[in-house]
Each structure stands twice: as structure tokens, then as C-alpha cells.
């Protein structure tokens, strides 16, 4: 009797233990401002799997330092959706789980977005795998075009055209503006939407080897000129001057005629703002050739996490057809090249523009990306605000040029 009781209880405990270990809670961090794709795929995963993913949204400007401090304090989440340009720095610091063997065993490994895998690889080991692909594109509000007497189906091809259209849209009245951008020192927003203006024209803000700042080019002067002009002519809302990125999706209020956005925003617009009738095209450069910023996030796993298998299961779900479809519906372009066409089939055709942008897109790569570009107090963020809104354009150029160079030099 006693023995049977013992067996029964131990069996019961065994069951308890096994169910407890089967249902893991994965803690994951994700940055704000990348749309709903990730949250929706988490929802779909949680609904269909025993393991659960708990996400914490961290403001996009603070994710890197919060993660680094959390690692230093031993409080890091199990996994992270990390802006892929930061991947090398964290891999180099030895804080990420080595995924090489597992990644290479995935049957579709070779069709995963190569630029993501490249940035996720450090010294021949893989520390990050593609989670989301994002490109910048140009959007216009077709209803406002129609009201202003413009052809709503004709995408603007040059900035002269965009400016002229903005003037016509502004004439519609009080709260309707022709153009918008987050100009209050949002380095991330501006590298994403504004640098394509010079990239397409053959210029860049850093030299090929990232060792020289090359900000002051005729192309950049011309690009700044277009934005300054539109601000001076009152075609841009006054709030743009102090928007540090929180209102990046102002286009969704339906009173903005044109804005450079990301593919994520297409997903957000289609799913959450179905009333807004908009068109999407590639961002023209100052001389009319198109360009784009290809970014996105890598999936990284904190070194030493105890839930490695559960995290891997979640990532495999993301790469499945179901996962990819959910992601794409909310604006993240497919990360698996082999099934991209099937994933996008039946989705909003405007997503195709985001995919097309990849072929003309650039991804700047430097270990000092945060200091130079993304930091709200870095030279690039300061430059975009000063050059477009202040009275001293030359000063803005020379200050930013010298400060960028000094940051690059001190990091060598």
C-alpha cells in the first residue's frame, strides 16, 4: 500500500515537473517603432503552442543601452529583436549565444536574408538570424492628391515634383500639409528616410571604409535645400521641428500629403488605417535615381539562457510558412527568400514596392553607428535638425563634419 502510494505520488510529481518544463515562458525584448509584425507573430505563436513568449517593448532609442546594462546586471531577457546594425558589437563583446551549428542545420538556411546573416556573423560564427526586413519607401495620400487636383495614380519621380505637389496640397487649408518628417533630432528616422536622397545620387555620409566623414557633398547640400524650402514655404507642420521620432507615423492622420516611410508602415496603414488611400513608390534621390535604406532586426539569444530549446522552437515557427505570412501581413518583408513569393501572394500589392526597394537599398555598417547616427545627441541627429531648421546651414555642415570625424578618430 505504502509502496503504491509512493509510486503514485512520484508519478504525479513527475507529471507536474514535466508539464512545468514543457511550458516555458520566454522573455523577449523588442524595440518600439517597428510596427506590429512581431507582436502579431508572438500572438499567433502563443495561441498555438504550449510555450509562451512574453514581450517587453523598449523605446527604440534606448534598447541598446538597456540591453547592455541588463547583461551587465545579469537581468537580460532570453532573446531580443535587435536592430541588425548593433549585432556585430554585441557578438564581439561575447554576450550572445553561438547559433552556428543549429542555424546551419536548418534546411532553408541558405535562403535566409544574406545581409542579415552577414551582420549576424562574427569571426565565422553565427550569433544572429534574420527576424524582420525593413526598407524605406515614399508614400503619398491619394485622396489629398485628388482634392488638390493632382493625378492620384501618378507617383512623383523627382523632389522638384514632390515640392510642387506639396504646395498644391498645402493650399487645401489649415491643417493639411504637403510633407512630413521627424526632424527634431531623430537620427534613426532621418538616416532611414533622408539619406536615400543622397545615396541614389552617388554620395554617402561616410567613406567606403567608414573612416572618413563625407557629409559635406553637393548632393547633401541639394537634399537639405529641398527640405529647407518646404519648411520655409510652410508645407511641413510646425511639430516636425521637435518630433524626436514619437510621431514618425503622422502620415496616418490623413492630413499629410506625402512622407517617406518604412515597409512596416505599409502594414500598419493597411491593417489599422484602412480609410487612408495611399500609394507607395521608391524614394527618389536629388537627381531622380531611386534608393532606399535596408534595415531590420536580427533575432539574437542571450548567452547562457536556460530556455534555449524553447527559443529555438519559437524562431522555427517564425520561419514557417504560417509565421512568415503573419509577419508579412503586418508589414515585415519575408526573411526566407525561398518562399517569399508564396508568402506575399494575396497580400496587399503595395508590399511588393517594399520588396523591390531591397535591390536599390543600402545598409550602412559601422561599429560606431549608435554614437554617430542613432543617438539623439549624436552629430547626425543634430545635423539634420540644424541644417533644415536653423539659419546657419554652413555652420551645421562644418560642425557635424568635424564632430563625426572626431568620434570616428577616437574610436580607432
Amino acid at each position: 500500500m505504502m509502496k503504491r502510494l509512493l509510486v503514485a505520488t512520484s508519478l504525479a510529481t513527475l507529471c507536474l515537473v514535466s508539464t512545468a518544463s514543457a511550458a516555458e515562458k520566454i522573455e523577449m525584448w523588442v524595440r518600439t517603432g517597428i510596427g506590429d509584425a512581431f507582436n502579431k507573430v508572438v500572438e499567433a505563436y502563443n495561441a498555438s503552442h504550449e510555450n509562451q513568449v512574453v514581450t517587453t517593448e523598449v523605446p527604440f532609442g534606448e534598447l541598446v543601452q538597456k540591453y547592455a546594462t541588463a547583461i551587465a546586471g545579469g537581468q537580460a531577457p532570453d532573446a531580443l529583436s535587435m536592430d541588425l546594425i548593433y549585432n556585430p558589437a554585441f557578438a564581439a563583446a561575447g554576450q550572445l549565444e553561438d547559433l552556428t551549428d543549429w542555424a546551419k542545420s536548418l534546411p532553408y538556411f541558405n535562403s535566409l536574408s544574406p545581409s542579415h546573416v552577414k551582420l549576424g556573423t562574427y569571426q565565422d560564427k553565427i550569433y544572429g538570424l534574420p527576424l524582420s526586413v525593413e526598407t524605406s519607401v515614399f508614400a503619398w495620400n491619394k485622396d489629398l492628391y485628388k482634392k488638390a487636383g493632382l493625378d492620384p495614380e501618378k507617383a512623383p519621380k523627382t523632389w522638384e515634383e514632390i515640392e510642387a505637389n506639396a504646395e498644391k496640397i498645402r493650399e487645401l487649408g489649415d491643417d493639411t500639409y504637403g510633407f512630413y518628417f521627424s526632424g527634431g533630432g531623430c537620427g534613426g528616422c532621418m538616416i532611414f528616410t533622408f539619406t536615400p536622397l543622397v545615396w541614389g545620387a552617388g554620395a554617402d555620409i561616410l567613406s567606403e571604409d567608414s573612416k572618413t566623414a563625407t557629409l559635406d557633398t553637393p548632393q547633401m547640400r541639394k537634399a537639405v535645400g529641398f527640405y529647407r524650402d518646404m519648411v520655409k514655404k510652410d508645407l511641413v507642420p510646425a511639430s516636425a521641428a521637435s518630433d524626436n521620432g514619437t510621431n514618425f507615423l503622422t502620415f496616418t492622420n490623413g492630413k499629410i500629403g506625402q512622407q517617406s516611410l518604412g515597409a512596416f508602415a505599409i502594414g500598419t496603414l493597411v491593417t489599422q488605417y484602412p480609410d487612408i488611400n495611399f500609394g507607395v513608390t521608391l524614394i527618389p534621390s536629388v537627381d531622380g535615381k531611386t534608393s532606399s535604406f535596408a534595415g531590420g532586426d536580427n533575432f539574437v539569444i542571450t548567452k547562457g539562457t536556460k530556455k534555449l530549446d524553447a527559443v529555438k522552437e519559437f524562431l522555427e515557427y517564425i520561419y514557417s510558412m504560417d509565421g512568415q505570412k503573419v509577419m508579412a501581413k503586418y508589414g515585415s518583408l519575408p526573411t526566407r527568400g525561398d518562399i517569399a513569393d508564396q508568402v506575399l501572394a494575396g497580400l496587399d500589392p503595395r508590399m511588393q514596392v517594399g520588396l523591390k526597394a531591397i535591390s536599390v537599398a543600402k545598409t550602412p555598417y559601422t561599429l560606431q553607428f549608435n554614437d554617430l547616427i542613432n543617438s539623439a545627441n549624436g552629430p547626425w541627429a543634430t545635423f539634420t535638425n540644424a541644417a533644415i531648421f536653423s539659419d546657419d546651414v554652413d555652420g551645421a555642415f562644418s560642425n557635424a563634419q568635424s564632430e563625426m570625424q572626431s568620434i570616428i578618430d577616437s574610436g580607432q
Partner: protein
Amino acid sequence: MTGSGPQRTRAVRKRRRSQWRGFLYIAPAMALVIVFFVMPVLFTGWMSLHNWPLMGAARWIGFANYIRMWNDSRFMAALNFTAYYTVIVTIAIFAIAFPLAIFVEKERRFVSTYRTIIFLPVVVGLATASLLWVWLANVDSGFFGPALRALGLVERSPNIMASFDTAFATIIVMVVWKIAGFTMIILLTGLQAIPSELTEAARIDGAGRWQRFRHLTLPLMRKTIALALIVSVTGSILAFDQFYIMTSGGPQNKMISVVYYIFNQSFVSFNLGYGSALSIVLLAILVAISIVQLWLLRVGEER
């Protein structure tokens, strides 16, 4: 002579015992100070002699961080801005808090209501207050701009946070609104400590209102003013929240205070070592300024 020997040792022993007891009494306070102030400062000093990244291994570099500071134009700009802010905000706080203290000192109807209302913003957290004022100053959905426009004073709602002067003025007004009540309470205790006999005697002697204030109130309030001044100056030099939340250091990085710069160096650029060196220098500056203030106001010197 011979009899005094054992007596003296007893006295010495007694004094020694009472010294031990005294030490026992202050031990908890000392422990707190050592654990939460002395040790962190020593550790910060140790870190400041290293190249100490947030992730990865630290490397000893001696005084290189301190040398780097001398040529760091952004640090100098931060020092400049902090000094400018401290001077302006301290003058503004005192210009408001002193009249308020005199106003609420006199017994009058509803005086405790006045005191409460004026003190109310002090209990709001600085971050909360900053967020509130960011909203008030918002160009489209806020209060100031749209209100000016509704009153017909301006044609279009101005973006207050977009230019340095107006954004800075907004922050000064916010800080005064938030802090003046606290300074007022400190000054009020000083005012109330002045014996009414003295004021009466001066009045009988024919001293006017201004003379009484200048030659009686001010000298007797020296210590209180010193306290209020040190609290206000130290607080202003350590200002961070309002710039971080309200303008994120902008427009064009013109509002980076020293603490903001230390934060950026430590947690944005991950140079914890350089951040520590800057912190040590800031600590030295604060100590020096406090000493100068105490000396100027001759606190501790009894007349």
C-alpha cells in the same frame, strides 16, 4: 600628587568608554554613509582610471580619462550650459520664493491654504512634471500654443520646443513652478525664527520697512539663505530629467547638462570609465562651490 594617579586613569577610562558609546550611536549612520557614499565614490574613482566599457574587460589607463577631458569640447559646452542654467534658475527661484515666503509668513486668512497650494507642485515628481509640461507646450495638442491662438494673440500656434530660447524659458518656468514652494518653506522657517521683539524694537526706533528687511531680516536669515542656496545650486548643477524628457537635449544639442553628458558617455557610448572620471570632476566642482558659498555667507561663524 600620588593619589591623583588612579583617579586620573579612572577618568581617562571613563572618557574612553563614553567615546566608545558615542561611536556606537553614530555607527548606523556611518555604516550607511560608508556603504552608500564612500565606497561607491572610491569605486568610481577606481573605474575612472580605466578604459571601462559596459561590456567586456576593463583596461588600466591611468589618468588618460582626465587628460581627455581638457580637450573635450562637448564637455566644456555642457559645463557652460550647466553654469548658465544654474545662474538663471537660482535667481528665478529666489526672486519668486522670497516674496512668497514673506507673503505666507504673516498670519492672515487662508494662509495655510496658500502654503499648501504653493507647496503642491513640490510633491509631484520631476519626471512627471516634465511630461506634464511637454504636453502643455505641445504645438498641436497642448495648452500654451493653442491658447495663444484662441485668444487671437498669434496667428498660428508656435512650436515652443523647437527653438532654444523658448524651450529654455519653458523649462525655467517649469522648474520654478516645481521648486519655488520648497525654497519658500526653507525661507519661511528662517523668517519665523526671527524673534518678534527685535522687529518691534526696530519699528519703535523708526526703521522703515526696507531698513528692517535689509538690516534685520537678511542678516538673521544668513544661515537659512545659505541652506536654500546650496540646495538650489546643487540641484541645478545636477539637473538632468527635465532636459532628457522635455527636449532630449535639443534643439541641436544646446541643452546637454553635465549629468546628461555623463549619462550619454556611460550608457550611450558605453564609456563607463570616462563617465566615472567626469563624475569625479563634477563631485569636486560641487564640493568647491559649496565651500565657497558657505564661506561667502560666513556660516558657522558666530557674531
